[in-house]
């Protein structure tokens, strides 16, 4: 999730989630998507989600507000009576698209052609080709899968006590075989008014999730490919099992591949996460004008992710069984204490808030891996029986954040609203010389509609203008980065032994490390027309984040490779438009629409004197010529693709613009015309250039809600325009190199008979690089959900005060030109330097759900 573009380059750009007033665990690096707290909350528990975007509203979250803040409030009990609500649904997830690989004979022909075109002898005889069988591993790994979800809620209250108790359960199988997701949780929210002046309350929730990975997630490329990409690449002539019913473990194509079906079927790799989120508050009115509030929150997380690769699986066969257990425990304690003073001052009302908060965190993890088991029965439940201890490690991390905050609101005649906030934050993560920083902000809103001169006009039913400016910070970098760290380095010393030694880590210390600082200016207007049947919200913003926490390369002769420094800046500008209309509002029939439209322009302004930064090869670089797929360049948006520009294919008779053409690859009919960007007469890594970007021109959503008597119809569409996707998986499935099996598109490859095509000829010698032909338009329009509901007549179900049946379809259609499974992908996590990459991303399912909500 990104709010108003990416504000940071390497630090975490995820927003801060605040659940019932307590900041949730926040990941530290931008490539760490595991902490999305939304995963741990059942949607039916949520009362409201508020997204704070402009600097004035986020400034109160100071240190962590730069990426925006998402306030999640869970449901609480209502006064009066008791209620029982049951929400239940069943559904089926369907495969929306299948990209078939070549058949056996087609693949062998491709290999032969690729060999001959690279100056080698054909690999297969015509007989071998004619008799080759076909096993479609992609089809074997996809399935339709059921899902169900249930929530039961008890809530209610009287004058002094309110309660809500709920439990929920979700079970999803995945459309890739052996993948799945399960979650159950419970919540207790209590509020008690002890006296007129004293209130207390608590929110406690427990969630347990299980996610089955089982080699279905996207892995690497080539031999490292998992799931659907691995299935595309695998040998289509090799049956999954041999005549004795044992898995065929491997195929030797251009690389040696493990049988992806066997790995998915045999390997067990469930990720199990438990989370306990609790807070208690007490609120005391010292005076009618002065309220003290203290909140204490605890956030506990436990994860246990074991993996077992039995000796019958390709990945475990040569180890005679392999198992590992990873687990972690995290604890965050938060104490927030505020005093609020309210009184009338002159013609307006004044609210002053002051307070402080402390947050401390402790995190530990453990990992053990062993191999060589006497039996596959033990799995990970008795690592002691394994003959070889492969590795074990533990780690502990602490951090703390101390803040003092203040806010003044002055409301003048309900027309002029002034807000000034200030916050002083200290974070353990920064250098000893720069622990503390101050983040001020100011906002002004003018409710024009309240002015006397607006009384006679008919056009506006609401008019409000907003202006804000503020400074926020980002501390979301990993701990201990400022210290002169030593890392453990193992050295082979002794005849068959290794010795642990201590040596400086690759990153140089930086005692001056400090906060990233973002300055954001926001101007907005809220407009209402026709008695607020049309409401328009318009915002424009510009933000600049400076002192970016960037890993700056050092010459290797320094003994280090990099240092985390505060250099450079990045800018985001954008507009956001929301239009809500009540199209029809009759007794029996209503129709409401909401359109949200946003456009953001991201630009790197400065990189500490450098023109560009190489973000590194990530996990895919090795397979595309050992270079990075992206670049961070001044004047360009983050997430720019960096590769080779292809200007069509060479045809017979085309002149050769290169002085040093590569044999078999350059200036041969049917080959890519790779642009010689630096004009040195040869094609090499220095000819790479920017070939695309993942940033959309605009994006948004469109919602329509219709009600006709007891029937409701809700449709939600999302769209994005102008964003590009780097379909990097096609390096192995769409370049007609004949290295591994490829997808059907290479049937359209160039041949002397088929010249009007964009797919190059078969050629085993063509490097598998990131060509511009792999960059595709990722624009799409998706029918995200369509729900038909029916409100049952009262008393049809005895005792039920309300009952509703519904049928929901999700992801019903996507209009896109993207050739992969789905254009909304990002295989490299949340790292903003690597946007829009598709490497065998998990395909998105179409889902049909039927459900009921019943309240007693």
């Amino acid at each position, binding site marked *: 999730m990104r709010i108003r573009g990416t504000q940071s380059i390497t630090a975490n750009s995820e927003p801060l989630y605040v659940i019932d007033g307590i900041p949730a665990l926040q990941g530290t690096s931008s490539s760490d998507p595991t902490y999305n707290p939304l995963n741990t909350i059942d949607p039916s528990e949520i009362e409201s989600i508020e997204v704070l975007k402009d600097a004035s509203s986020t400034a109160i979250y100071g240190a962590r507000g730069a990426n925006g803040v998402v306030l999640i409030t869970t449901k609480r009990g209502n006064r009066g009576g008791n209620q029982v609500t049951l929400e239940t649904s069943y559904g089926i997830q369907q495969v929306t698209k299948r990209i078939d690989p070549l058949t056996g004979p087609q693949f062998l022909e491709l290999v032969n052609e690729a060999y001959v075109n690279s100056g080698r002898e054909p690999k297969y005889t015509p007989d071998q080709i004619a008799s080759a069988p076909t096993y479609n591993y992609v089809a074997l790994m996809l399935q339709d899968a059921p899902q169900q979800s249930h929530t039961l809620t008890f809530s209610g209250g009287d004058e002094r006590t309110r309660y809500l108790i709920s439990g929920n359960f979700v079970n999803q199988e995945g459309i890739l075989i052996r993948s799945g997701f399960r979650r159950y949780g419970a919540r207790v929210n209590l509020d008690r008014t*002890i006296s007129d*002046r*004293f209130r207390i309350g608590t929110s406690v929730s427990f969630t347990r999730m299980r996610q089955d990975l089982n080699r279905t997630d996207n892995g690497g490329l*080539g*031999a*490292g490919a998992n799931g659907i990409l691995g299935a595309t690449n695998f040998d289509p002539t090799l049956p999954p099992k041999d005549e004795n019913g044992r898995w065929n473990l*491997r195929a*030797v194509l*251009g*690389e*040696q*591949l493990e049988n992806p079906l066997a790995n998915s079927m045999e390997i067990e790799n469930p990720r199990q996460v438990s989370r306990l989120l609790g807070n208690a508050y*007490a609120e*005391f009115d010292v005076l009618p004008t002065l309220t003290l509030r203290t909140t*204490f929150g605890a956030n506990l997380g436990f994860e246990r992710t074991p993996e077992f690769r039995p000796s019958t699986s390709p990945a475990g*066969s*040569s*180890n005679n069984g392999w198992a590992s257990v990873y687990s972690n425990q995290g604890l965050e304690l938060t*104490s927030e204490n505020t005093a609020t003073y309210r009184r009338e001052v002159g013609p307006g009302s004044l609210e002053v808030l002051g307070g402080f*908060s*402390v947050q*401390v965190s402790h995190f530990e993890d453990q990992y053990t891996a062993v191999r060589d088991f006497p039996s596959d029965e033990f799995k990970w439940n008795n690592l002691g029986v394994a003959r070889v201890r492969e*590795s074990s490690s533990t780690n*502990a991390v602490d951090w703390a954040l*101390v803040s003092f905050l203040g806010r003044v609101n002055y409301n003048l005649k309900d027309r002029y609203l002034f807000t000034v906030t200030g916050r002083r934050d*200290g974070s*353990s993560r920064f250098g000893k010389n720069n*622990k503390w920083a101050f983040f001020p902000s100011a906002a002004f809103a003018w409710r024009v509609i309240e002015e006397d001169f607006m009384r006679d006009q008919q056009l506006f039913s609401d008019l409000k203008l907003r202006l804000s400016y503020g400074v926020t910070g980002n501390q979301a970098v990993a*701990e*201990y980065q400022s210290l*002169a*760290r*030593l*890392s453990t*380095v*193992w*050295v*082979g010393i002794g*005849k068959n*032994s*290794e010795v642990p*030694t*201590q*040596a*400086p880590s690759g990153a140089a*210390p930086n005692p001056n490390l400090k906060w990233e600082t973002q300055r954001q200016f926001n101007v907005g207007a809220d407009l209402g027309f026709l008695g607020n049947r049309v409401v328009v919200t318009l915002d424009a913003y510009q933000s600049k984040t400076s002192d970016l926490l960037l890993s700056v*390369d*050092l*010459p*290797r*002769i*320094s*003994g280090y*490779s990099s240092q985390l420094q505060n250099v450079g800046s990045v800018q985001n500008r954008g507009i956001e438009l929301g239009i809500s209309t009540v199209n029809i509002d009759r007794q029996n029939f209503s129709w409401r629409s909401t359109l949200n439209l946003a456009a953001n322009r991201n630009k790197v302004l400065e990189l500490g004197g450098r023109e560009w930064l190489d973000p590194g090869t990530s996990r895919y670089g090795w397979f595309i*010529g*050992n270079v990075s797929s992206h670049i961070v360049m001044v004047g360009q948006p983050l997430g720019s693709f960096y590769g080779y520009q292809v200007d069509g294919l060479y045809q017979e008779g085309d002149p050769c613009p290169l002085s040093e053409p*590569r044999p078999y690859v350059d200036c041969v009919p049917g080959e890519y015309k790779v642009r010689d960007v630096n004009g040195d007469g040869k094609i090499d890594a220095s000819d790479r250039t920017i070939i695309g970007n993942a940033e959309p021109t605009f994006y948004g959503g469109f919602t329509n809600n219709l009600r006709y008597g007891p029937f409701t119809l809700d449709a939600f569409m999302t769209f994005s325009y102008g964003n590009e996707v780097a379909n990097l998986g096609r390096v192995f499935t769409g370049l007609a190199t004949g290295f591994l099996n490829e997808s059907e598109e290479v049937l359209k490859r160039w041949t002397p008979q088929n010249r009007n095509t964009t797919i190059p000829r078969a050629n*085993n010698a063509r*490097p*598998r690089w990131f060509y511009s032909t792999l960059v595709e338009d990722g624009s799409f329009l998706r029918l995200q959900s369509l729900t038909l509901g029916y409100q049952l007549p009262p008393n049809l179900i005895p005792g039920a005060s309300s009952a509703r049946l519904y049928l929901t379809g999700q992801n019903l259609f996507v209009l896109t030109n993207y050739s992969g499974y789905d254009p909304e992908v990002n295989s490299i996590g949340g790292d903003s330097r690597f946007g829009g990459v598709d490497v065998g991303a998990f395909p998105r399912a179409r889902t049909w759900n039927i459900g009921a909500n019943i309240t007693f």
Partner: protein
Amino acid sequence: MNRRAWIAPLVLALGLGGCDDLLTETPKSFLTTDNYYRTPADIESATLSAYQPITRGDVWEWWLVIDMELGSDAVRIHPDEPNFGTYHPGLFLWTPTDASVSAPWNGFYTSIYRANLVLDKAPKVEFPDPQFRQELMAEAKFIRGYSYLMLTKLYDDVPLLLSVEDHEKAVGTPRTPVEQVHAQVIQDLTEAERDLPEQPRAHGRASKAAAQMVLADLYQWRSSFLKKDEWAKVAEYAQKVLASPQWGLLDDYLSVFLPANKGNREVIWMVASSGVDGRTSTNVSCHWLPRALGFNTAGGCEVLGQPTRWMYESFVEGDYRKEVSYRTSGCSTDPNIGCITFDWPNVYKYRPSNNGVGGPSDVDFPLYRVAEAHLMLAEALNEMGNTAEAIQHVNHIRARARKGNGSENRPEPADLPTTLTKEQAREAIYMERLWELAHEGKRWFDLVRRDALEPGYWRTSIENHDPEVAQRGDLSPHRKRFPIPAREIELNPALTQNPGY
């Protein structure tokens, strides 16, 4: 009562927040320089850490092996290798941005930094046994000297950093002329030779003889590539090694390399492969074993493994070294693959105990061994005009090969006649180095340094011995030197690039 209830959490919060101590980071899972380098054990650990980069992927576990083997005329990559196009050394197409070019630079300078840390910190630590400190500092000087020698053999002039302060001021440091770097290498290694023990403290660590081998290597490089005619120094240090009772030739050539025979008296200094864990083991599976055999390397990554036709056929028929160094068939533990015959021989002189299956390899990679001392001495004597005596040292090596597995008496390779001319003897010595030191990372240096004595030798050797690659690749003369890594020049504008790049 009510009033007190809200005080409690407030007090707790104040207790938590009342101090800056909360913001001071005290890591528990790793050390910092503030709490290390205090005891002799710390200094010894720091010394051992300086060996590590030389033994890992940047240098002799991966990239430098690939550079030296594929950049020579002796080894080619199998065209089925998926990253064939990435291994530019195989086609002489490396550029200043290639990992093959930057990796050895990075590795050697990391070793140098760690060695300089030892030399900086050791004098400040109290040693009950000052002799121990002297030895550790000698090891650091050995590592620093060896690293600078190797850097000059690859890149010519390189920045010379000799203290922790030099590293802190790295940006702006220009390249130092080779002569000055070599003067420092000589000083480091003669001091190391003086202070190092006869027998290394542990397998993988330096000894007096190791320092002597590096010095012989240095003078051999200077005499041939730099034409300094310091052959007498080569002979002096080679003779010192050969005179030591600690070291000598084994009877069975193959046994020199077998894991079961680690610590033998022929291998003076090596990359010690633990076989315990991948992080401290040589990458035999990826370098030398055929991809088709289904070794447990996530894809069966054969990178080199294959001698050129010329190399394979250059051995005299019946040479034991050819018989044990290559194989043309083998078996996988995977029944789906079984036993297969290769389309071309694969190197088989590095034989891990586990046959490359199910875990890391325990085969050492030799860096200096006694056989090379004989051949260095032979070369020096020949260049100084004492051809007849030189031939005797070559014949010493050939006689060992005739012993086969130690108890054989083979006719080949027969003794060379002592009547060879100086030029014939030089050719014979280089060929003997090719066979005896096959796949030990020596051949590229031999091609390049002989080219200085016989201009054109480097290019014609590759053209004649590997015509196909010579045709596809780039044999411009500047490729006899490595470029300075582009990243280093970019981050340190004081550096200049080597001509041609």
